[in-house]
């Protein structure tokens, strides 16, 4: 069909597509109860193994975010042996999260022991690990790590980033999309609206905040 992009408001959306987008988001982020409610209300059909994997991912996610990284690593190994074995970067990042937890708990000696036995072996593999280890070790130079110029390593943003990476790796292992359909849609919408706005008389660039406000 030959449709003028500026006439996007005329495009009809299939109800089932909308439901799939929403369910994709809920499953990706381990909203189990919401997913189940949504499925029963809409009458959609979903394979049971999705929900089972979601439950396991949820527990891993939870442990990692709450500062029990070693448990998260253990559960990930139970889920599938080779998820972390084949991903040195991710395993290193998870181990470094545990190191950060020890530092924040003021368990200096334990942190040093852990770094020496678990992080140090990475330094002989590649230089990038050496640089990262040095950054983490500098946290130890402060009674209160927040004073360290590398304090972002103990922040929630960094932790969320690592945990998101873990979640994506697990999803990829089970051939599930690592990005939600919602995320992709917003990305594509932003790009398309950006291109259109550069033409004469095009609509303004897409802003999710403005979009939600206008409804």
């Amino acid at each position, binding site marked *: 069909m030959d449709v003028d992009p500026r006439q996007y408001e005329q495009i009809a959306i299939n109800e089932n597509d909308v439901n799939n987008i929403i369910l994709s988001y809920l499953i990706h982020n381990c909203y189990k109860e919401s997913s189940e409610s949504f499925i029963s209300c809409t009458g959609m059909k979903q394979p049971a193994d999705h929900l089972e994997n979601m439950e396991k991912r949820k527990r891993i996610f939870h442990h990692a975010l709450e500062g029990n990284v070693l448990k998260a690593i253990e559960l990930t190994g139970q889920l599938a042996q080779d998820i972390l074995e084949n991903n040195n970067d991710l395993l290193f990042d998870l181990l470094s999260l545990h190191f950060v937890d020890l530092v924040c708990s003021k368990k*200096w*000696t334990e942190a*040093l022991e852990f*770094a*020496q036995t678990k*992080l*140090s072996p990475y*330094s002989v593999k590649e230089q990038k690990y*050496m*640089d990262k*280890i*040095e*950054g983490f*070790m*500098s946290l*130890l*130079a*402060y*009674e209160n790590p927040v*004073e*360290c*110029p*590398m304090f972002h390593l103990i922040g929630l943003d960094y932790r969320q980033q690592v945990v998101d990476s873990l979640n994506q790796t697990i999803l990829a292992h089970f051939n599930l999309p690592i990005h939600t359909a919602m995320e992709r849609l917003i990305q594509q919408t932003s790009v398309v609206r950006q291109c259109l706005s550069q033409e004469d008389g095009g609509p303004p660039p897409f802003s999710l905040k403005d979009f939600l406000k206008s409804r």
Partner: protein
Amino acid sequence: MELSTIKDAFDRVTKKQKLSCSKTQEAIDQIRQEIESVLDTLQSANNTDHELDYKTVLNELKASFLLIAPLSQMEGTQKELNVALTKYGKLLEKHFNPDISKAYRNIDIDRHTLNQIIANHFYHQGLFEIGDHFMSVVGEPESAAIMKFPFVEMYQILEAMQNQNLEPALNWASTNGDKLAQSGSDIVLKLHSMQFVKVLQNGSREEALHYARMHLSPFATSHMTDIQKLMGCLLWTGKLDRSPYHALLSPSNWDKLAEELKRQFCNLLGQSYNSPLSVTVAAGVQVLPPLLKFMNVMAGKKNEWQSMNQLPVPVELDREFQFHSIFVCPVSKEQATEDNPPMLMSCGHVLCKQSILKMSKNSTKVFKCPYCPFDIDAAQCKQLYF
């Protein structure tokens, strides 16, 4: 100066001398051998009834001496030795000017100032006993004590560092922390880093961690890379020599640190790194050859040399002796002075003030830059500071 040529000539003389000596010894040995043989013959003859003709025996001895010809034996090597020795003498004359007094002139210098300079040199070099004795002899023991004290402290610190003891250095750095920070020196971090490595080498990880928090963390903002590497060393406590950071254990680090400390110590005192006297003598030795050459050229104008305040020939010093830039005017060929400073013209070239005044006829007219086609207004020239 090329000393290898002189050494080669000296070696040749030595070689010839040894050869001549061995030849002489050989000849003497031969003579002694003949004489002893004849003596044996004469003595043995006394024990027999057979009458011996003494005259004949002595004549035979004489004939042996003629046959040996000791003088002609030694003559050759003696001659060669003399030739080499003569050449060596000429070479010395050529390379070592015996009359360096031509390259000096008398100046009046305050005796007290001269004594201070000499004493400062002794203390600067750590020769405290000689310095004390010197100042005692010249009758100035009070000023000696004042001059001597900081150098005693400096050498105590350096001596402790030679034994890998940083405590005196760290105390000094702590006392002078503010001044060192103002001068932009990072020696305090270097001292603490070295001490931190020592603690690590002793295998005490908790102590090292405590030291890092106390002394290294204040530097993290400005020296993050250094701090990160030092903290990385914590993973290798007790086995730093087998770690990626083994370079921190190099003995040359101590030498560099000691030199850096001495430099900063002298800097805080307002003293130069090397003693003024040693710098003066070293620079003087370097300029002596061109000065002597100049004096030979000026031989007939002794009086003129004595009165001039600036050499008409350039004298090049090594970089270590160049402390400040001095501008030389390309027009007048004179060095800039406070009364005649370098001036930056609007075209970007530089002339001395007096040259500008002359070319602009005391700022009354526009003149052309000697280097480029620009017309220059003297009023727009600005003084430069090096």
